[in-house]
């Protein structure tokens, strides 16, 4: 199936982003296509390359970036949500791109399933 994922919470504070990542990995392993991962609301905070978790913890941004680049999945960070939360091009990590909210509507039109991860 053609999947769209919508991530609505930031890293570490809520499990939503971890769950979405595990779900995405499992979907790709099963041969499904992820059309786009869209980061909205506090989800935009997953995209910052300034993240420096403790050494014994997972690095949520790096996990996401690796998933995007290794599988050639498009990651869009909503520009309006990002700006009000202090995420802009100067801090956005590899694999993430800032884009308009219209790309979420387009995803809903094209995807067989849209799965939302939120608190």
């Amino acid at each position, binding site marked *: *199936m053609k*999947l769209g994922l919508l991530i609505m919470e930031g890293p570490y504070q809520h*499990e*939503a982003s971890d*769950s979405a990542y*595990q*779900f995405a*990995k*499992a*979907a790709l*392993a*099963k041969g*499904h296509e992820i059309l786009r991962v869209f980061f909205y609301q506090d989800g935009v905070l997953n995209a910052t390359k300034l993240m420096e978790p403790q050494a014994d913890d997972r690095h949520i941004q790096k996990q996401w970036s690796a998933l995007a680049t290794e599988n050639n999945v498009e990651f869009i960070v909503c520009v309006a949500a990002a700006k009000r939360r202090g995420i802009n091009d100067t801090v956005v990590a590899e694999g993430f791109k800032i884009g308009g909210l219209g790309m979420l509507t387009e995803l809903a039109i094209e995807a067989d*399933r*849209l*799965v*939302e*991860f*939120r*608190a």
Partner: protein
Amino acid sequence: MLHLINKSPFESMALEDCLKYASKGSAIMLYEDGIYAALAGSSLEGRMSGVASDYKVYVLKEDLQLRGIDKLIAGVTEVDYAGFVDLVGEHKTASW
């Protein structure tokens, strides 16, 4: 329809809200803190046993393990992330 519940039933009305709208036989996937709804021996066990007989209730194995929960009420089905993906393939999903 597949209803995704990720909030503790002891703290949030998300599952009860969902049940107001879900028709019997619909699928419910418990994950994150939602897995506590499947906890055996809790004060919600009676309520949840009824839910498990009216709906297809699934619970995410990885989130059970993470929280150290191994005793589940009767009638719920454990699935892993691969099974979660399969369920999404079979149903439209609503995130409560």
